[in-house]
């Protein structure tokens, strides 16, 4: 039996797009495949972030704290101890989840903007730790990871695509589930959610753990694609800002929109590369316009058209 959600037109459109994306390695240059591979991992970062912002209503200014923990733990384990890739990735994910828990447990007890500020500080702390313990982490020069998942661009691309689709599916189903409904209620009105018998802290903490899990896993996998880990590409505040912008650009509370936003951002920056320094400006301007005119992002534009 096919569930009702798999028979909707929206599901069919997504399925067709994924099928086309899967066939891209047959006719697209290796360079573009490489860009999309990175974009897909960024898509997972953004979707994980949207679970927190869109559903739990908590602004996490430190998505790269979780990404960086996963990436650096996996990278260091490979670089220093030569553990198998699967073990490095698994332990990297565990590190992100544990780090996320240690951060969120006290931070979620704070109200107002303080949760967001705590996450911001966490990024700066991690960034400093990487620089201070340069012997272990490679510091500002970066960490070289000797192993790679595959030397084939196409294989790496398919792994990234499959990973994004799988993560997106889990996050999407979760957000639409009964537990997701409770999470939204906890995010929108924690007093009312409490009165309905829901332990708000528990649900938000769970959302943070899920977000950390996918962020850390994606970070660890990305390291084994890039072959290096550096603060500038994985932890820096500007990377976090990109993740956040992608999620908002795609459309808050949609999960899928976040992935679209991430791919758009990376594609646009690349398409405008010939304009040099102007590229960042143009992309920022487009983002600003979309957010101001369509606060619900690309997905908001789509549903607006339909009306």
């Amino acid at each position, binding site marked *: 039996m096919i569930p009702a959600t798999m028979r909707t037109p929206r599901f069919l459109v997504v399925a067709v797009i994924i099928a086309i994306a899967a066939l891209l390695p047959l006719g697209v240059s290796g360079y573009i495949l490489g860009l999309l591979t990175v974009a897909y991992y960024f898509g997972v970062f953004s979707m994980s972030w949207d679970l927190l912002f869109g559903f739990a209503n908590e602004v996490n200014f430190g998505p790269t704290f979780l990404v960086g923990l996963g990436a650096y733990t996996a990278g260091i384990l490979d670089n220093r101890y030569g553990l198998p890739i699967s073990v490095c990735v698994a332990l990297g994910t565990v590190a992100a989840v544990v780090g996320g828990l240690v951060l969120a447990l006290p931070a979620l007890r704070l109200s107002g903007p303080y949760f967001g500020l705590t996450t911001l500080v966490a990024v700066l702390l991690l960034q400093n730790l990487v620089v201070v313990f340069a012997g272990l982490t490679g510091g500002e020069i970066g960490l070289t990871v000797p192993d790679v998942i595959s030397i084939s661009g196409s294989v790496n691309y398919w792994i990234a695509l499959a990973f994004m689709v799988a993560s997106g599916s889990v996050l999407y189903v979760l957000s639409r589930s009964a*537990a997701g409904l409770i999470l*939204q*209620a906890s995010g929108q009105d924690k007093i009312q959610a*409490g009165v309905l*018998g*829901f*332990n708000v802290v528990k649900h938000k903490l769970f959302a943070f753990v899920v977000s950390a899990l996918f962020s850390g896993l994606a970070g660890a996998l990305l390291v084994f694609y890039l072959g290096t880990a550096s603060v500038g590409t994985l932890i820096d505040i500007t990377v976090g800002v990109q993740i956040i912008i992608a999620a908002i650009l795609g459309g808050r509370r949609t999960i899928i929109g976040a992935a679209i936003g991430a791919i758009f951002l990376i594609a646009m920056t690349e398409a405008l590369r010939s304009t040099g320094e102007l590229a960042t400006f143009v992309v920022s301007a487009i983002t600003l316009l979309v957010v101001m005119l369509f606060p619900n992002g690309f997905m908001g534009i789509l549903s607006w058209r339909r009306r």
Partner: protein
Amino acid sequence: MATQVTDARQAVVEVRGLTKKFGGLVAVNRLDFSLRPAEILGLIGPNGSGKSTALKLVMGIEHPTTGSVRLDGIETAGLPAHRIARMGVALVFQHSRPLERQTVHENIMLGLLPDSLFKLRISREIRERARDIATQVGLSAVLERRPSTLPFADLRRLELAKAIARDPRVILIDEPFAGLTMAEAAVFSELFAGFRRDGKAVLLVDHNVKSVAALVDRVIALCLGEKIAEGTATEVMADETVRRVYLGGSIETAARPESSFADREKPLLDVQDLSVFYSKAQALEKVSLHVHQREFVSVVGINGAGKTTLFNAICGLLPYQGNILWQGAPLARVPPARIVRNGVAQCTETRDLFGEMSVRENLDLGGQHQSKAIANDRLAWLFDLFPILKSRQRQNAATLSGGEQQMLAIARALMTNPRLLILDEPTLGLAPIVLEQLSKALESLRQTTEITVLLGEQNVTFALPHADRVYVLDHARITWEGGPDRFAREAGSGYL
């Protein structure tokens, strides 16, 4: 005695010595009451009497400073709300806050879900049960609509449906009939009576006895956090203390006749057919009133009658229909900051002080638009009017007592050198001794200055002595206008 038979029934909620302090303010003071199955208890009191705090303490949204709340003999004081909810207590909020992106059906289902992280599918039983509840409260026709498209009464029904979904033994309802028409209120009354038939214990929290009299088995009246009366609705309405709190005792009034004001033809402030809507609910309906230069006018009405809305409209903070004339010129489309500089100052109900700033800094902000010399003069005059503020100059506003904060709010408004001072519920939550000081200050303003005052109050005892004229605002409409001496005789009975 007949009452002993009912008393013998085991109480489901037992409240003993319940006390809640917010800083120096005692919101609820040594409150005792019990609530039995199949009973509707009314908890009434004016604004700031502590009834909403008491409700939150029972639900666990606030935690008591001291005292005990027992649910079937189990102590719940200090437990979080979700634990108390799971023990069978539900709360119907006054303001509905549904999930806007979900349908009515999904909103009701939310109340039926277990507190589980791993439950992904919503079962058929839950869907069916939510549909049944919707039918029970009269929402079956709008099941698939979004809450934002619903009329006000249906939003209240949705809140009720969510509480029913919890299948509670105890239902706490905050202002059950606020914003409803008579016909809608009758339907809701029937639903509440149904709860009683099902053996549930119901606590209704409201401002006055009258609105819940027909429904309740017993009433407890609160004032300043303390229980002042308990009994049947009739007993409580006849109680001397309750009458004094709501109607004032024998009040000395000293009204100046309307004909004595110089601007008889063209009043300083003239409000004509003012109507204000908050999306669904009408907050003011064709309200007309006027205030003369140097006149003290009181607008009397219970919470939710529309007083604050009226003042905010005058200050240009809300869109409205109708006219508001200031010295004969319309105020519509004049920005709020300009209205203030034209001489209208409002002391809001919440006082809106800058808590992290000192008393002096708060006052200096009020005097920003004056020259230094004038500001200093006014400061000296205000320290004369409220001597306590002079000694508290360096203290942070947030650390003042409630009465001192109110004085500071009034003083800050007076620093702007207004022609019209609007006071919204200045007596809210203040002790009688403080009221006396405020009274003296107002009297001094009336005797020695040119200022005009528009006072919004539900405390009639405070509103009448300072008024030259009184308006009664009831459910968004002006229902009575006259001198304070005629108030008790003509309008008092409708106010208990």
